[in-house]
């Protein structure tokens, strides 16, 4: 298992009317080939911005810091033209809403083959053959006919499959999937997730799965990183982070999930509102909502500390972390 992408201290500021606003604040993680890397967190925690930063698709006026090393090359400092060539070929992305992520007026053929022809220099015939292959791979029935169709002729789940086929066309090594199932029916979700999992294993593809749905992550991800207010609060193997979560925020997320074996148990919501980028508290951003808050939490940003079981977490109050820090 080799590390494909290594992100260190990634920072993103977005341009606002009141000056640059930090959205992602020093995020680090590693993604390995053939594995599903899960990035979890509530809306506004900076998950999507992290992904867009990796592809260089941030909105105009955004500034970035830190590094993202893919094959010894730093994505964050690449020049624009070079960066563009990595998109689709090395890092591809599937977006949340399949209804709006495909061009409504272009045929599936055009959308599925234009980057094959541009990036890989295929002829129209080669690209069409590859397109049929791709649609078969993502289980679109009758792929030849589908190529001639337009997005509005397909259901949400089918469109998401087409999006995945488009993303996979140039055989990228990292597939970033931003909430790929959020906009879909539950029954369709499972199919899309199985597809991602199969692709990941068959093609030795690294998948970065961004979601707020911890159920999805615990089923699919090999490692999980939990973000809150632009920072990583806990990360490690899924079994540890999801099964035996230690950080108060992660635990809060897990406790707020419905549990099939304890249907009569009341769900425990996390008190308070998530901190938006404009109003992030000082110190540990979670401290105003935290049951275990102690005075230092409100002033010092807790560092990520690696503890025995292979996880890292940022909580000075946790007894294990406290004992290590001593």
């Amino acid at each position, binding site marked *: 298992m080799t590390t494909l992408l290594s992100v260190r201290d990634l920072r993103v500021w977005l341009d606002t009317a009141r000056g640059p606003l930090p959205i992602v604040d020093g995020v680090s993680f590693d993604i390995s080939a053939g594995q599903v890397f899960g990035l979890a967190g509530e809306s506004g925690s900076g998950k999507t911005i992290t992904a867009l930063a990796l592809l260089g698709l941030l909105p105009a006026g955004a500034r970035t810091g830190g590094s993202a090393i893919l094959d010894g090359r730093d994505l964050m400092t690449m020049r624009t033209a070079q960066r563009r*060539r990595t*998109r689709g070929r090395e890092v591809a992305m599937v977006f949340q809403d399949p209804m*709006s992520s495909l*061009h*409504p*007026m272009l045929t599936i053929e055009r959308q599925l083959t*234009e980057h094959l022809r541009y990036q890989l220099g295929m002829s129209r015939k080669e690209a069409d053959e590859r397109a049929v292959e791709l649609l078969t791979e993502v289980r679109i029935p009758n792929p030849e006919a589908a190529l001639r169709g337009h997005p509005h002729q397909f259901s949400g789940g089918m469109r998401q499959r087409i999006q995945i086929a488009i993303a996979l066309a140039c055989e990228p090594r990292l597939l970033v999937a931003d909430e790929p199932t959020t906009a879909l029916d539950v029954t369709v979700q499972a199919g899309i997730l199985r597809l991602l999992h199969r692709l990941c294993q068959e093609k030795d593809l690294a998948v970065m799965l961004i979601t707020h749905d911890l159920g999805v992550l615990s089923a699919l991800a090999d490692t999980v990183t939990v973000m809150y207010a632009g920072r990583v609060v806990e990360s490690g193997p899924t079994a540890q982070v999801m099964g035996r979560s230690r950080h108060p925020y992660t635990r809060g997320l897990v406790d707020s999930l419905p549990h099939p074996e304890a249907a009569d148990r009341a769900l425990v919501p996390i008190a308070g509102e998530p901190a938006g980028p404009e109003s992030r508290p000082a110190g540990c951003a979670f401290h105003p909502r935290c049951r275990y808050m102690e005075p230092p939490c409100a002033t010092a940003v807790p560092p990520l500390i690696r503890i025995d079981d292979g996880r890292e977490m940022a909580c000075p109050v946790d007894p294990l972390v406290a004992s290590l820090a001593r």
Partner: protein
Amino acid sequence: MAFVLTHLVPGDPAVANLGDRASADPVAVRIYREHFGLDKPLPVQYFVYLGNLLHGDLGESEQSQRPVSTDLAEYIPATAELAITSIVLACLLGITLGVIAALNRNRLSDQIIRVVSLGGMSTPQFWLALVALYIFFYKLSWVPGSGRLDAIVLPPPHLTGLFTIDSLAAGQFDVFANSIQHLILPACVLAAFNMGLFTRFTRSAVLEVLENDYVRTARAKGLPELTVVFRHILRAASPPILTVVGLAFGNVMTGTVLVENIFSWPGIGQYSYRSATALDLPAIVGVMLFVAIVYILVNMVVDILYGIIDPRVQLA
């Protein structure tokens, strides 16, 4: 045909009204009575006119003493050449500027383009025409000031009546160059307003499209920016632009009246001006009919293009 008929209705009372005012001129009254039976009740006149129209008879022009349809056939190609050139110029410039403005929203280039487009829309056409003539004809002598060709140049063999196309078809490149020289200034003056209009519309249409996820999808494929702009963004932004281009044919037709007179361009605009001042009613109605037909045809074409551009329209 039903459309043509409805568009004719407002034209017909005008015939009666103006005819009454023209009674100060006994010659005109006599001619009208003889040729059009103005002494008959209005509805009868109307149906007589319609009956003639069905046979392609638009009546006879009082000025030229020829059938109005013959006059129109002579003047339409000149106007068509001018109007089409000006629309094409306005499209090329306006859409390009609009895209540039939208992609550089609120930056310097956007501000400059805003000034240019608002200038184009708010400058009175007659003033622009006179200033353009003064600068490019009188001062710089870059272009000839009037007509479609120099007096010593023979028109190319008649094919479409558009001198630029006919001369190219006949391989007379000197005639082509000469006709372009004559065409360019009036076409630019006529294009100024629409250029500004198209720029504004393109800018807002593109800005709306830019918000869409599929633009990000296109970029995520690593396509070059020009492909993203032309294939993905402009395609999606084209329906509203197309609508306004279609409507612009209307203001171009009114614009020709002024521009053709200032530049001595022998087209429908001049013809209608002469007819209107001479109260040449059959000619006026003929011109109105022509403009209405152009307008309807253009907007029909726009509707058909909607279906080609956006496949979802066919389902609706």
